[in-house]
């Protein structure tokens, strides 16, 4: 549905999006994850024909975003990051305006508006002036607007930002539901969100794609083995020794914590030590209070990937920087001026 091919966007000499390629299949919910300034919004603006790419191409539903912009825009519902709305209009006036602008057939307009108001939970504020709505409600009005013409593709730039926890849950639920009928591309900083609603994640950092996979694959790929945390009663040193002897276990940390013992058992890649641990405990008649496998969260992966990148880039930058600091260069210029 969406195909991005070697897309680059430069602002002056700053590269916001750097040669990225990816695809979004029909019916898929793709999450775009990245720190501030990664280029998520820029990518979305290119896909919605708001800004042009410097080079590369992008097609949405088979239409080129530059050459066939009107047709592309007819197929997408876009929720910009800051949700800019006309604050002087009433909610239903605004939706009517948007529906007409997006060429919803005349007969369907009012039923569609009602439907979208209901879906986004804003029926009770439909006569309110948008400027008097809270941030969360504006977000919902924006969301209602993206749905008003029943587009094939939804592009949502941080759809849950600024919402309270209850609303976040509702909006996520809504997006999940929408995913059954629409193709969705969304961006976010919130990792659990991606795990919860996206079928696939793209991690983007400094304009480059650094990972593109399903959330569970990402987790599996980056951390094959797992850490198991234990809480047990019994002689702590003996238990520790026994745990070390389990095949595949690399490291055991922890020990006596007052009434109970707590251990962290790290095992080899691809090895699940839980079964052996249980058997060891059963054999020795120790009491196992709790056993939990800690999987590396997407959060940790995200942190790992993006900081690695940042460090590398920083090192590169430092090595390329011309000798001498700002001070030296400034005095050099001043010297030349004096002459």
């Amino acid at each position, binding site marked *: 549905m969406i195909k991005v091919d070697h897309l680059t966007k430069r602002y002056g000499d700053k590269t916001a999006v750097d040669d990225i390629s990816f695809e979004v299949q029909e019916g898929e919910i793709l999450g775009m994850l990245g720190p501030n300034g990664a280029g998520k919004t820029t990518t979305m*603006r290119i896909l*919605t*024909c*708001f*800004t*042009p790419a410097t080079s590369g191409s992008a097609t949405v539903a088979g239409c080129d975003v530059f050459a066939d912009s*009107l*047709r592309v*825009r*007819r197929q*997408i519902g*876009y929720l*910009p990051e*800051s949700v*800019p*709305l*006309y*604050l*002087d*209009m009433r909610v239903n*006036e605004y939706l009517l*305006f*948007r529906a*007409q*602008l*997006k*060429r919803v057939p005349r007969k369907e307009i009012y039923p569609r508006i009602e439907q979208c108001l209901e879906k986004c939970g804003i029926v009770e504020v439909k006569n309110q*002036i948008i400027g008097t709505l809270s941030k969360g409600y504006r977000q919902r009005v924006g969301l209602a*607007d993206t749905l008003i013409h029943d587009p094939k593709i939804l592009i949502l730039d941080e759809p849950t930002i600024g919402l309270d926890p209850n609303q976040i849950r509702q909006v996520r639920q809504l997006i999940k539901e929408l995913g059954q009928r629409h193709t969705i591309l969304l961006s976010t900083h919130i990792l659990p969100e991606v795990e919860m609603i996206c079928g696939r994640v793209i991690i983007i950092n400094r304009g480059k794609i650094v990972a593109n996979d399903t959330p569970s694959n990402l987790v599996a790929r980056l951390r094959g083995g797992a850490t198991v945390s234990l809480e047990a009663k019994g002689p702590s040193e003996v238990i520790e020794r026994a745990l070390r002897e389990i095949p595949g276990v690399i490291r055991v940390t922890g020990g006596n914590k007052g009434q109970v013992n707590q251990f962290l058992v790290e095992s080899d890649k691809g090895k699940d030590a839980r079964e052996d641990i249980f058997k060891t405990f059963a054999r020795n008649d120790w009491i196992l209070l709790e056993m939990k496998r800690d999987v590396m969260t997407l959060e940790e992966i995200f942190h790992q990937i993006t900081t690695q990148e940042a460090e590398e880039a920083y090192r590169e930058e430092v090595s390329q920087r011309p000798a001498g600091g700002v001070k030296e260069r400034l005095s050099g210029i001043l010297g030349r001026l004096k002459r």
Partner: protein
Amino acid sequence: MNNVPTVFKREMISYFYSPIAYIVIAVFLVFSGYFFARILALTQQATLTYSLANTQFILSILAPVITMKLLSEEVRSGTIEMLMTAPVTDFEVVFGKFLAALFLYLVMLAPTLLYVVFLNWVGKPDIGPIISSYIGLALMGSMFVSVGLLMSALTKNQVVAGVTGIVTLVILFFAGYAVSGTEGWYVAALQYIGTYDHWESFTKGLVDTRDVVYYISITALCIFIAVRIVESRKWR
């Protein structure tokens, strides 16, 4: 062209929800009423010629006030992103906004028709110059509004848009006015560019094609440039 009425309607809603429309109309009525009454008292003639002639200067100031927010505010508040990612063309947006501003301008003029009714009641005015004056006012309005709209496309600060619009129109007004009566190669040029001389013949009951062409071509030019400026976002 299909989205022009939609854009127009949205601008009308916005105008009448904000105080600006009412303020502009009130200011205009105060000044035009004052001129009408003063001139009527002075000349004792049942004519609108002089009082309408005097309105040109006020309209040069009020038209940019009407148009100043049209495009600049979209950019400043970011709503342009919502607007332009909907399936509309740049021309539809600019032209719809132009028509809305022109409509408000005409609404502003409408109450002066009461003066005509009043003159008819107290005397026997020559209806020809009155009709041509209104045609002239409408044409002049479309030019003023388009100049204001162009300024609004150039900046995202609506106050800057308003001030530059006013300055431009006032300079155009005085360009012809200041040199009238003097001689030199530049006089004809300035008088042609200036708004003053084109307007005058309308007040005398003439609808000169040259003047009509002048107003319409400047209007078209300004709208054209404004569309290009909005479009320029696409190659930056």
